[in-house]
């Protein structure tokens, strides 16, 4: 019922969904972000003898600007391609990968030279709104913004963790071509501990500092966050240790 309503609303608004494989990226001094592109899961299909497999990569930064394009190609079904994302020395966002010829989950890694952490991307979709809907979003979104609100089109829930020496930040990805105003509400022990509103540029991203949502001086270890956005978005968790974003980081997908 709710899905049908949502589908009807998308149709009315002229929203199109394009199947897209995306992965998050983060770069920092001393932190190397490398994609591990592969087609290994195709090795039991007719594709096993093929290759190279084109896998064009487009890298968007936090402002939604395309900062790099890579004409990548996976050599064979069993030989992966390591693609360093070195166009930006310090930043974050997401990349899209053309997976028309690939049949595998793809990995993104964050490494410091000695070791790396890894997670995988998502084969999902991005939403494209036509001009009139974008204008409507802009007008209504600006009005809601004045009240610290957003248009509640999509909701996600996520636990995050905060401690003296470790925490999990949230990398919000705007998977649409409209400005996405994402309202975050944090709750710990039944009490609201923080709220914020982030306006994320089309195809942009925001790295949400979990400390901004934790109550000062609180011993709360777990916060549950409720995200409400006016357009399609997803998120990854960013694990940080004692040096916070200046130290080793991990990325992790969520359902």
């Amino acid at each position, binding site marked *: 019922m709710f899905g049908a309503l949502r589908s009807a609303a998308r149709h009315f608004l002229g929203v199109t969904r394009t199947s897209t494989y995306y992965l998050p990226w983060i770069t920092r001094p001393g932190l190397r972000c490398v994609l591990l592109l592969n087609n290994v899961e195709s090795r039991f299909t007719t594709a096993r003898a093929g290759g190279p497999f084109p896998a064009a990569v487009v890298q968007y930064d936090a402002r939604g600007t395309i900062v790099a394009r890579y004409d990548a190609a996976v050599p064979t079904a069993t030989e992966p391609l390591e693609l360093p994302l070195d166009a930006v020395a310090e930043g974050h966002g997401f990349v899209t990968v053309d997976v028309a010829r690939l049949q595998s*989950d793809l*990995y993104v890694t964050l490494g410091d030279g000695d070791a*790396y952490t890894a997670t995988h991307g998502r084969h999902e979709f991005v939403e494209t709104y036509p001009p009139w809907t974008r204008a409507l979003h802009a007008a209504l979104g600006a009005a809601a913004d004045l009240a610290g609100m957003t248009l509640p089109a999509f909701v996600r829930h996520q636990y995050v*963790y905060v401690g003296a020496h*470790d925490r999990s930040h949230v990398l919000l990805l705007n998977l649409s071509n409209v400005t996405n105003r994402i309202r975050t509400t944090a709750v710990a022990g039944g009490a609201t501990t923080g709220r914020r509103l982030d306006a994320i540029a089309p195809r942009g991203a925001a790295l949400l500092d979990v400390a901004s949502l934790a109550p000062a001086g609180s011993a709360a270890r777990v916060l549950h966050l409720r995200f409400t956005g006016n357009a399609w978005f997803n998120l990854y968790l960013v*694990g940080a*240790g004692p040096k916070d974003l200046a130290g080793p980081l*991990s990325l992790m997908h969520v*359902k």
Partner: protein
Amino acid sequence: MSSSSALCSATFVDPGYDHLVELVHQRDRAAHRRLEALELELYEPGGASLGRMAVDTRQETLDLAALVAARAPGVARVMVTFDARYDSRVFPYRPHHYAYLKLRDSPDAPLYYAVNATLGGVPERIEAVTRQNNFETYLFLSRPAGERYGLRLGNLARFSPVEAQVITFHGEARAVVPVTLAPHQHADVELPLEREGARLRRVELKTLFRLASYVTGRRADSGGLVLFDHLFTYFK
């Protein structure tokens, strides 16, 4: 464990880590109502039970490290099964437990992972009916030298032992390591970083039925986990 409204997941607990498990991944009131019961069972590496206990499903997160420390002190590696029963209205959403893992007093980042769903759940969603979920693979970067890799495997079957094959690929060199696990037995299988001068690039796991399985990566110097990830099934 295999009825359509049950999900059995498993993870492993090492001493020295903070380990917090989310009982329901979605934090909304309906999700909590749909988790009807949750029982945990702890197993030592040889497969002997260290205890079974019910968990209050009203809890949002469970301090697994504290629970294991209290119930199984001194055991180097404990396998914990999560036998969850859901109101069938939760489906077709596939429930998950996720977990936060951090080595105490370590400079490394914490890890966040999906607890391995091994039995039950939504059969077609965990690829147990129409797809093979017992033939998995994982890839490794070629560069970092200060990391050691392994596979952590657990047999959740009550009565059947399993003979698994762990296959490593170092360049073109393929090597097979047989692993036999009795019911509820679990093991760490070391994956050699190099073989004949070539780096480890890929691992495969073949078994007759699905095991609890994780790829682990550890810093060579401290032994701290930097990878704790699920493998990927070949056939989707």
